[in-house]
């Protein structure tokens, strides 16, 4: 465990010593701020309209603002997560520092876990920016906190799964751009796999839809912790890290 933390600290150090972390933070803040502003504008517009039409119906802040915003985050994730993970192993392979890690008395698993954890912590830092926006909602309105926290958990689990996949892809190449591009492609495909369930009900379509990372987030956005969906994300995290370990091992046998 000590070694995991040493690696994790070092990775966080390199994220925050370079402009990478700050640029990701700023860009995410800008994009999410715009999304928030739009959602709020639409909410205000709709509520005024419903009042003017005379037949006002109750409008829920959670349902109108928080839920769509958090499901938008998972789309932003598709772009940001490859940017976070692409350097993890590709950079070490390119500069040769992987030799230092691999010849130190540290297990492969500890290296992988440390790196993934660092990526997750950076993601959490970026992600927590959204709390600033939501704080306004709590100041001026009365949204439910619990569903918001559950939705947060869902997005976080989804991000963990994508980060694990990105970590794995980063071990396959020396080139950061390739690692980033492939990660983006894979993440996007996993996201849109759910589409097939719209027109096809055969077994393969159901399997594909099940594999999609977006299918399993819906329950969280509704404020429900579904253990099936949580287990799905945890499984993807485990598989991603497991394949990373196998890939590191095969690296040695092949290189």
């Amino acid at each position, binding site marked *: 465990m000590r*070694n995991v933390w040493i690696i994790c600290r070092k990775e966080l*150090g*390199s994220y925050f010593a370079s402009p990478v972390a700050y640029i990701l933070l700023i860009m995410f803040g800008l994009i999410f701020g715009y999304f928030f502003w739009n959602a709020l504008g639409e909410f205000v517009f709709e509520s005024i309209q419903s009042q003017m039409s005379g037949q006002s119906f109750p409008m829920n802040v959670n349902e109108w603002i928080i839920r769509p915003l958090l499901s938008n985050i998972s789309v932003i994730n598709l772009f940001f997560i490859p940017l976070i993970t692409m350097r993890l192993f590709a950079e070490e392979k390119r500069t040769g520092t992987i030799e230092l890690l691999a*010849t*130190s008395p540290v297990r492969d698993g500890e290296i992988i876990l440390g790196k993934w954890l660092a990526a997750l912590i950076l993601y959490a830092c970026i992600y927590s920016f959204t709390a600033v926006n939501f704080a306004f909602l709590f100041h001026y309105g009365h949204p439910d906190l619990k569903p918001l926290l559950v939705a947060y958990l869902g997005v976080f689990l989804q991000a963990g799964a994508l980060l694990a996949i990105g970590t794995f892809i980063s071990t396959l190449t020396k080139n950061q751009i390739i690692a980033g591009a492939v990660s983006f492609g894979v993440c996007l495909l996993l996201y849109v796999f759910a589409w097939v369930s719209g027109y096809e009900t055969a077994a393969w379509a159901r399997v594909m839809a099940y594999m999609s990372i977006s299918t399993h987030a819906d329950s969280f956005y509704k404020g429900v912790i579904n253990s099936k969906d949580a287990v799905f994300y945890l499984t993807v995290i485990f598989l991603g890290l497991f394949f990373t370990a196998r890939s590191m091992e095969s690296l*040695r046998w092949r290189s």
Partner: protein
Amino acid sequence: MIKVTQLTKRYARTTAVDQISFEVAKGQIVGFLGPNGAGKTTTMRMLTCFLPPSSGTATVAGFDVLDRPLEVKKRIGYLPETPPIYPEMATSEYLQFVGKLKGLSGADLAKRVDYVCGRCAIADVKSKLLGKLSKGYRQRVGLAQAIIHNPDVLILDEPTAGLDPKQINETRDLIKDLAGEHTIILSTHILPEVEQTCELVLIINKGKLVATDSVRNLQARARGAESVLVEIAGRAGSFEPSLVLQKLEQLPGVSRVLCKEQMDARAIFEVESKKESFVRGDLARAIVESGWDLNELRPAAMSLEEVFLQLTGSEAPTPEESPVEVQA
């Protein structure tokens, strides 16, 4: 300390290291010599547990590299060909990170960081970013990183590659200095380096070990005949090198004479004598008695380079790697 038996590394199409066996005793400095691509790095990577061997075994301090890699890694300090540094880290930060990875902590760690900084003469760049350091400093940081946990065995892959002559000398001195405390294996394709620093030489070519011996024994073994260089001068106008050549060839014991250089009234000859015949005295007398001046007479000792070329049967080193330039 290190025992290697029948170690082999095969890749899909090539055999990089082919059944090499050797042993290194505690405290020895061993030079791993071979042309580029001979399998030096691969062997070192197997010893450091970076690559698993295809067959054969290697043990470090009694631990097998395949069965007990963590124990082996604890006892090895490794400097790969390019120092494994993170450009965004400061020197002291980097050394602390490596120290922690190798299992140091607390006051121990701080003490070792200070110690290696002094030892490798990098104390003045402690707070600088590694990416901004010069090649020589990076190499020394790499060396500091390798010795931070005071390992029993140091494995250095071409520690002087790409340094300028002054830095090469400094690095060599540092390595010699470290020899007392650690068992050292260093690889190089620069021959004087081995002559100057190593006790034992392993010559490897195309994955095979072609010789294992001390520097002196290797020189003696390869030297079949003695050869001497003589510079002879005569009076301008009447000096005829071919005449000298004839004269020298007739001396008893001489097997071959070559005119190496010829100026207006001087010439340098290489005189090779038969095995176990000592001709230098006769040579000097004959020259003087013939009325020429003997300017210089020195043995042309067979350098390790010639031994190396003879054993590996390869081309001479390219100019930038030539020892002449290195020694300058």
